[in-house]
Every structure is written in C-alpha cells, then in structure tokens.
C-alpha cells in the first residue's frame, strides 16, 4: 500500500518570528506552510516576507477559518480572498480542518468537533464540493484534536474521513499528533485510526507537541514532538511511504535552530521508517 500523492519533503510552519532568518540563512527546509488568514491583508510586513519567501520555497496554504462543518452559509468573501492569495503565491495545495469554527451568530475561533453522523457527513460533503468548485482544486482537510465526542456518532472519525474523501474527492491532512491526543482523550487505538484511512487520499502529515495533563492531553503546539508521536509517525510512514511532513509550532517559539534540529530528527526518523518499508516490500 502506498500514498500516490508526491511528497514535498520536510517543511516548517512559516511564522513571523523566523521571517528574517529564513531570508538571511536560506535554511535547509523543503517547504513552508503558511496560515492563510495571516496573509489575507492588504499590505505590510507579512505580505512582503511572504512574497520574498514564495520566490525561494514551495508553499502550502493552511486555513483555520473555513468552518466547513458550520451551521452558517459558507463565507464567499473569505473564499474569494483565499483564491486570490492562492493566485499570488501558487501553493502546492490548500488545507483547512474538518471542524466548525463559526457558530450561528459569532466567530468562535476554535477547531470544534463535529458529530460523526450521516447528517454531518452530507452537510460537510456538500460544502466541500462548493469550496472545491470555487478553488478549482481538491480541498485538503485535517483531523482535529477533540475533548468531547457526540453520543449520536454513526461513524468513527476515520470512517467519517474515509466517507468524506470518497464522496467529495477531498484529500486528507493527517495530523499524527491530533490522532494521538484524541486517542488518549477518547480511548481509541491511534494506529487503528491511521491504518484505516485511505492512503491514496493522504496529502500531508502534521507533527506537533501537546500538553499532557495525565488524565487528558491538550493540543497546544507549544512543545517539541513527544516520543509516542514520533513512534506513531514512523509507523505511519512505514505504512504510507513518503508523505509531505510538516513540523508545527504555534507558541513558545524556540530559537530557529532548535526547530531545524527537530526537523532534522523528523528527516532521520522518516528515512529509517522508509528504509524499513523498503526492506519489507
């Protein structure tokens, strides 16, 4: 079994803290993922650096505000701006999250979980098709961490993702850390989640850190990747083959060199996993 989508290699999240070093040092990072909303502005430093970095590195757009499962109508103005940004920087793909982030009346600015029901599936599938029609490309959706789940679930999360990919042709951003976080919080087996996803739909992987409170785990993106997530990552690559891998850090930003060191670790562990895969082929 192998992923059919070509890999960009090993990337980092583009954050303003590191703009200058990226331009001055041209670090050995294969690609950068940008938070789309940070660049839906009319001018200023962020766009200046984005344009400069887009000339040197492949970019991918990652949004947090699409609210693909929300109860409101899709925000066509937002989608238009996403499309314009894509025309500007030509990302390899555009992703967001399988979640809702806007309620009936207000923006909630969180990646809120959906009930995995048939009603949700057809609601989300219709909206994914709408988005794909506007963007003229497959939408890539990420699994989110969660702290509650609905009793009404008809599907497991991985079954829901499978069905959504099947119905819409959307692709998946598999966040290995989020699988780990949710598996701890909800008591499912993380590997069962990953091995049951459709390999041919997996466009990208995310790696990140979290806060472990013992009884539960919170997805914070403010720590290095922990050993169980590294192990799960290796198992995932051994199963899928090469997949674009992104190291995320959204808070407690370390010196850039520390992130590069952590990215090197991802490369080394990834290479080992892929070598094991080759041996077993």
């Amino acid at each position, binding site marked *: 079994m192998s992923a059919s989508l070509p890999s960009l290699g090993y990337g980092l999240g583009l954050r303003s803290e590191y703009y200058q070093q990226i331009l001055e040092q041209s670090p050995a990072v294969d690609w950068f993922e940008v938070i789309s909303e940070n660049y839906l502005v009319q*001018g200023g430093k962020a766009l200046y650096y984005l344009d400069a970095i887009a000339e040197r590195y492949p970019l991918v757009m990652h949004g947090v505000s699409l609210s693909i499962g929300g109860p409101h109508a899709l925000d066509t103005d937002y989608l238009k701006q996403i499309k314009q940004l894509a025309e500007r920087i030509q990302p390899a793909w555009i992703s967001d999250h399988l979640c809702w982030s806007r*309620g009936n009346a207000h*923006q909630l600015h969180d990646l809120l979980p959906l009930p995995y029901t048939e*009603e949700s599936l057809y609601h989300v599938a219709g909206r994914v098709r709408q988005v794909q029609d506007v963007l003229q490309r497959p939408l890539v959706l990420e699994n989110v961490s969660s702290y509650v789940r609905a009793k*009404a679930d008809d599907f497991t999360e991985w079954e829901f993702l499978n069905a959504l990919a099947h119905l819409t042709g959307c692709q998946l951003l598999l966040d290995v850390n989020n699988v780990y976080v949710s598996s701890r919080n909800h008591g499912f087996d993380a590997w069962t989640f990953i091995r049951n996803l459709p390999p041919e739909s997996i466009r990208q992987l995310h790696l990140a850190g979290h806060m472990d409170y013992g009884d*539960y785990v919170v997805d914070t993106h403010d720590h290095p990747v922990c050993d169980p997530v590294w192990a799960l990552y290796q198992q995932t690559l051994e199963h899928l083959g090469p997949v674009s891998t992104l190291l995320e850090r959204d808070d407690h930003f370390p010196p850039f060199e520390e992130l590069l060191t952590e990215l090197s670790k991802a490369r080394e562990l990834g290479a080992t996993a892929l070598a094991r895969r080759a041996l077993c082929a």
Partner: protein
Amino acid sequence: MRLTDWQLAFEQHLLSETQIANSGFAATLLGGPTLDVETGLAIYHNAYLSRLQEVLRHDFGAIWYWLGDDEFAALTEAYVRRYPSAHYSLRWLGERFAAFILEHLVAGQSAPLAELARLEWAFTLAFDAPQGQPLTLNDMAQLPPEAWPGLQVTLAPSVQQLLCRFNTLAIWRASKAESDFPDSQALAPAHICLVWRHQNVCHYRSLEPAEMCALAGMVTTGWNFSELCSALAVTFGEGAPLQAVTWLKQWVQDGLLQRRVP
C-alpha cells in the same frame, strides 16, 4: 438533536459566563476513559476566552501594562462577552475596544484609556494597510519645475490621524520601555498624532498645530503647493516657500504622502 441545534448549544456553552454546560447539551456528549464530559467542555470554554484575551493582550499591550493582569482580564472578558468576534480573522477582534471602554467604564477613567486604545488600534491599522505609492525624495527630484506649483498630494493609505487630549503618547512610550507611568494628564491644547507604516516599520509623530494645519490643507482641503505657500505667507511672510519646502520634504521622507490622482 439536529446538527444545527447541537452546534447552537455548543456555541451557547462557549459564550456563557460559566464553564458548567447546560445539562441537556452535556447529555449528548461522551467523555473518555479519564476525561469526563465536564472537563472536556471546560477545556473548550477556557480556550475560547483565553484565545481572545491573548489577541487583545497582543494588540493592546500598553493598556494591559497600564491596568495589570487582573483588571485587563476583567475588562477584556467583559468586552468579548459584549462584542463577540464577528470577523473570521482575529486581527479585527479589537476594532470596538476603544468604544467599549467608553461605554463600560466611568468617564474619568475611560477617556484616557479609550484614547490609548485608539492609539494602539491605529498601529494595528497602519501595520497591514495597503501599501499605496508613497512619494519619495527621488520622485520629487524628478518633478519638473513647472509641475511644482500645481503639485497635489494625499495621505498614504497607512496613515492614521489621532486627536490626543491626554498625554497618551507618553503613557504608550512608558509601556514600551516598561518604565514607570507618568500620571494621566489632559493636554492643552490637544494635539494630532500620526501613526503610519513606512518601509514595513510603523512610526508615530505628534504634529505642532501650524504643521498640522499645513498638512491638512494639502491632504484634506486639497491645496496645491502654490496654495500652501500662499497660506503660509500669512504667518511666515517671505519665508513661506522655504517653510513649505521644509515640511513637504519631511512628510515625503517620512513616507506620509502620495500624489493626488486628478
């Protein structure tokens, strides 16, 4: 429960003042082996408020420094309860903060604080405003002599104008330097402060009344350079053209101006 009803209940939980969820909504949920529903919902409830407050701490750092952690937290919680976010981008969360301060606090406290909020918001607006095409000294050097009298300009898109009735700039500077605050004082007369972005860096400057009148004459009234010189002659006499050129050069160097499109 239908999806939209379930989402409405979830939204009401996030927006409520207590992290204890409505029992009917909580009954639709499952926890995990060691994470109960109540704790799971509290994680979402706390994350909602703390995420918004973090954005406001970033955008209104001087007010945070002035009020301290507890007062700032109380003020920002009241703000996001009164005006929940309406824009997909958190960049706009603080848009109504200055107006809210005036509504929420007693007048004696609110006026200087709201003015500081307007100053900090002006920096946010200047930070990512459209670039426009600011005039440069090189543009001016290439202007043929016959074009000078009719030269008309407007403000570059990033320029924000703020009427300061208090020593807000001194308070803002103290917060940036993390030094002791001066006492809040009313200014007599009030002055105009400009905040703008030039070459990707935000700047600010207070203008004396005479300079502000000259600038407003050009960018608001629409004077051309010749009319500016005429207006300045009332005060500066024969020195008016020199004063006009001095100010114009300063404004261009600062990146404040662009050509007015006829």
